[in-house]
């Protein structure tokens, strides 16, 4: 077991973890943050996307031990004082979710995308979300949500 300390959604978290424990399972099981989902085992689907030191990463492809000393933001850490983050609000208004399973991953990927490119074209959005898969929406409204969030200046 290895001791790690990291900041998750602004709060300090200390734990002993097996080196092989993936960050996504650490978040879900040790910290009880069940919002981040596991959707595949080949780092393809992005359902597990969180922010690690401000950048989107697939938390199924990071060991918790690698995140020692880092800051992690999960979907639970986005809303401020209970108010939905502009990206969350945009997904709601554009009907950018159906079953919701891929949604936290898409929202976090979008936050990161807009941080790096605040005014993306549709093509940049589609390529910028290549790391996230959705079976329900056909992506159309997800793209609209990202565009709406960009307009809202998030």
């Amino acid at each position, binding site marked *: 077991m290895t001791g790690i300390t990291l900041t998750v959604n602004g709060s300090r978290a200390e734990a002993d973890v097996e080196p*092989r424990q993936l960050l996504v399972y650490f978040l879900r099981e040790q910290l009880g943050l069940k919002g981040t989902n596991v959707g595949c085992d*080949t780092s393809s689907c992005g359902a597990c996307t969180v922010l690690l030191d401000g950048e989107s990463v697939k938390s*199924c492809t990071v060991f918790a031990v690698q995140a020692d000393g880092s800051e992690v933001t999960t979907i639970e850490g986005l809303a401020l004082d209970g108010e939905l983050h502009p990206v969350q609000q945009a997904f709601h208004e554009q009907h950018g979710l159906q079953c919701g399973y891929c949604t936290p991953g898409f929202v976090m990927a979008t936050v*990161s995308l807009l941080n790096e490119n605040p005014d993306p074209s549709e093509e940049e959005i589609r390529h910028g979300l*290549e*790391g*996230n898969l959705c079976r329900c929406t056909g992506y159309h409204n997800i793209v609209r949500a990202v565009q709406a969030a960009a307009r809202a200046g998030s």
Partner: protein
Amino acid sequence: MIPAAFEYVRAGSVEDAVELLGRDEDAKLLAGGHSLIPLLRLRFVRPPLLVDIGRLDDLRYVREKGDRIAIGALSRHAELVRDPLLAQACPMLAQAASGVGDPQVRHRGTIGGSVAHADPASDLGTILLALDADLVARGPSGERVLPAADCFTGPFATSLEQREMLIEIRVPRVDQGTYLKYVRSARDWATVGVAAARVDGRVHVGLANMGATPLRARAVEQAVADGASPADAAAHASDGTDPPSDVSASGEYRAHLAQVLVRRALEQL
């Protein structure tokens, strides 16, 4: 899936990493993890010890080194995409880095990790081979410069010693170069990739996923040197190659794609 158990240790320096690798002959380096961790999760590999070099931040840089550009081996793909020096000095590499994986992968994956992983379909590995890059490795007996041509020995195999670590990649300045790849879908690995560049006046061509390693299309290069047109030179695209047949494509189709992409790449030079 869950990886098999392993010991973990974090290296504080390159020397540290080299020393830690010596603890077990099957120990492996963990950088960005985006080549290794998927293999671990499917239990295709089970190293007993991982040496984490992910925090060796002084190996993340792009700078001039004589007439070459030196890239720290732990530079992440996303950093290469936005590096101003690379954009000016060797834009094809920055362009190819922007197509590796997806944004999340690019936030973590490193160029050194890509090279060491030695996927025959690797975009970056193919470009480095095409550009005759130099790979700088440090091991227990010190530092050495490994030409890219001598690096890739087989599928997912390099001539790096078990206790060697890549620390720097050196590429020439290239203002005329392009990397084209055919993919079944946007997030897929290259079905076939072609790197073409003018280096010191001579045209170099590299092929991804046309054999057990990234390959140089020497016959194409010779044809171009002899004055052949792009189409005529491209007819030699699959000379000396052994393109795999798999779920993505047959060897025959790969050979065809190579010809088309080589011609298109040469036309851009």
